[in-house]
């Protein structure tokens, strides 16, 4: 119930779900770089279209996507609105009020930046949507992250929802003792939160303590050359996807930086 929003992963059997998580991480990085290389609105819209196609192929439902990207959409609207107010360069000038000058190119620049943000957010959303946290960490470890750090990351992700529930329970427990969290001014409110914060930290430390014992009792760190139950292995399809993605980045990059084509 509570905290379910933390993990965006939705199990399904699609091409994107089956793709090797390493390829997916690389893909997301490549597409993110691509979003910065492209500066034309048309090409960025094309990229956004491609990303939405991927989203569609991953069988993401509209309602879930909108829920996950709610804040990004608000952020995009904010960019479109604010950009022209702070960027007075270019002509034609559409409106002028004191020091504020609204120009047509500035509006387009705002829209372009908003689309770029949209591309970045959606592409990372696809990664989180199609890859379980365990696979993600597994891939990072395979890509060279130290296993300790990978495990730390996995545990942090795993415990986010748990702590969400814990904090709710602590809030309830203190409310039952007459604590009114939203009452009073800023100082009073922050003081009120001490009653929630202290039990949360204490419980977190106790959990960490227990967890470390549990890890030790399963011989964690006994051997440096640990083996893995599930090995990641690249299938032909993974290589094809990787090649396509690299081409997708290299071609526009060459066009822009070597041939000086405006894209």
């Amino acid at each position, binding site marked *: 119930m509570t905290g379910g929003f933390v993990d965006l992963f939705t199990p399904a059997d699609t091409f994107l779900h089956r793709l090797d998580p390493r390829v997916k991480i690389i893909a997301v990085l490549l597409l993110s770089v691509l979003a910065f290389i492209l500066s034309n609105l048309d090409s960025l819209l094309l990229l956004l279209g491609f990303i939405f196609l991927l989203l569609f192929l991953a069988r993401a439902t509209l309602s879930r996507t909108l829920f996950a990207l709610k804040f990004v959409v608000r952020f995009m609207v904010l960019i479109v609105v604010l950009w022209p107010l702070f960027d007075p360069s270019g002509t034609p000038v559409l409106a002028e009020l004191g020091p504020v000058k609204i120009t047509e190119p500035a509006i387009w620049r705002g829209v372009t930046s908003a689309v770029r943000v949209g591309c970045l957010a959606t592409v990372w959303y696809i990664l989180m949507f199609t890859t379980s946290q365990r696979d993600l960490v597994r891939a990072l470890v395979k890509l060279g992250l130290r296993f300790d750090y990978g495990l730390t990351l996995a545990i942090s992700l795993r415990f986010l929802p748990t702590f969400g529930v814990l904090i709710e329970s602590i809030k*309830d427990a203190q*409310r039952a003792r*007459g604590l009114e969290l939203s009452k009073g001014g800023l100082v009073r409110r922050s003081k009120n939160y001490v009653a929630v914060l202290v*039990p949360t930290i*204490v419980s977190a430390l106790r959990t960490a303590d227990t967890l470390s014992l549990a890890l030790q009792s399963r011989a964690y760190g006994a051997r440096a050359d640990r083996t893995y139950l599930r090995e990641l292995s690249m299938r032909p399809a993974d290589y094809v996807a990787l090649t396509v993605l690299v081409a997708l980045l290299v071609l526009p990059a060459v066009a822009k930086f070597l041939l000086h084509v405006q894209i």
Partner: protein
Amino acid sequence: MIPSIVSPLHEGKVITIRNLKYVYEGGVTALVEVSLDFKRGEYAAIVGGNGSGKTTLAKTLNGLLRPTSGQVLIEERDASQMTVAELAKTVGYAFQNPDHQLFCSSVEEEIRFGPQNLGYPEDEVRKNVDRAVEAMALGKLRAVAPLSLRLGERRRVSIASVIAMNPEVLILDEPSTGLDNEETEELMAKLKVLNDEGKTIILITHDMRLVADHAKRVIVLSQGRVLLDSDPRGAFSDLDLLRQSNLQPPAVTQLAHRLVERGIPKDIISPQELVFQVLRAGGIK
């Protein structure tokens, strides 16, 4: 000692629940249709397996959860019109895990927290704290940091911190979890004193021995409905019904059920009774 103020005027119902329904966000129905009354000075236990709705029911009594439909009256007042803090003056709720409550640097401060939040005047706060300290036998621990105490003591502190608000009704969520036999018995003896002084006690538990030994009324919940509402003797005589709610009667009752053919009655809830009945039947051959 907490003086009992059971004047004829105060006698009668302290909690009235009518057609209570509760549906969690996401569509899980925790309570289907619950109607119950609690009289002042009762000692009741709400039992049921995990997910039977017992904690949900208890949380609607002090406003932590607001019913989807139906009504909860606390001392004749509609709970939906009252804040959690207002309700806390009448319905005290001690959570299962004391570590979710304790945050002060001394037991005394911890116990003061509730009555201070409710805005009681200083002399009344002091009086209530003294009573709560006495009721949970924490006199020697007043200046100690609560988090350095043993679990049994921490639970007593958390219960004292609720008693200090001087509520008419005391709800305890799984009070025996993590306590050994002796600690449990100690705690239950203290609760009995409170009950004798006129406080209404409601235990939420699946510890059937606790129920058999202490409660005078058992409310069995299953899938959000009241399956049974009777005294412990009656509640434990119907094994099938208990099974429906994922519950098992105390071991001694189960043994009595197996000895039915030898003339032992089914409604036995204490070892002493069983011994008595066995002796009366002339022993078991």
